[in-house]
């Protein structure tokens, strides 16, 4: 599983998990699993997340052990 900074990115925009789920067109369960690092997104979803936060996939997701 990968480390991610989704909670920080979401908090910076003052979004709830439900808001983010709506923006990404996924369930709130998916957002919770992503934020807890229990689910690695598919490539299309990773691109969608990066696009939404106007950054690269590497800015959002890093392999575990990489700072």
């Amino acid at each position, binding site marked *: 599983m990968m480390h991610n900074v989704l909670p920080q990115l979401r908090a910076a925009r003052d979004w*709830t998990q439900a808001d983010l789920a709506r923006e990404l067109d996924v369930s*709130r*369960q998916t957002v*919770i699993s*992503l934020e807890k690092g229990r*689910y690695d*997104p598919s490539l299309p979803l990773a691109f969608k997340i990066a696009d939404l936060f106007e950054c690269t996939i590497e800015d959002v997701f890093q392999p575990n052990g990489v700072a």
Partner: protein
Amino acid sequence: MARGAAKRDSPPVWPLFVFSATVAFLAVPIAIGSAGARLGALGGLAGMVVPFLLGVRRARLVDHGDDAAPPSFFELARESTARAGRMFVYVAGYILLVFLVWMAPASGQRKDSGLAGLVVATVASGLIIATVVDGARLQRRMGGVERQIFLQSTSLAFFVTVLGAVAYALFEVFLDAPKLSMWLLWSWGMAAWGIGSAVIAKRAT
């Protein structure tokens, strides 16, 4: 406007009715059935009630974890069963089918199945094929963690059922353990799928 939108988006209540009716129906073989029927019905009951309770728990903790006033148990049950949607219809249909098989006379005592038997068997197998096709469509439409849960629980149920069946077959061969009906095996396979889905979903969140 937000209130109106929330009302429009409120989950349907029919899956909760289907769930309740099926659970009530399962009480019949548990109360008056043979040992095998009772075991199969208990498997069906576990396969429905465990995911239901975990679904209610998920609705309370995940979907309404931040709410100041959590919804009533009925609302949580409604949301939980609505999420599974027509899967409950399929499970209810399967349980009805098993009940029909249980009620049917044993093959040695059957005088003439005739046209009625042919119609029942054809319609039932047609419905099963339609269910499988619909399940495959449903899986293709799924995204996010739900797809992962569906695929993991399906493979888990498959391996648990197959390995359990092989292990039991060894007891049959070497220890003369009583032969089990295939209907019991399929019912336990479905129960394994239901419980596996709930447990994997709980671990994923």
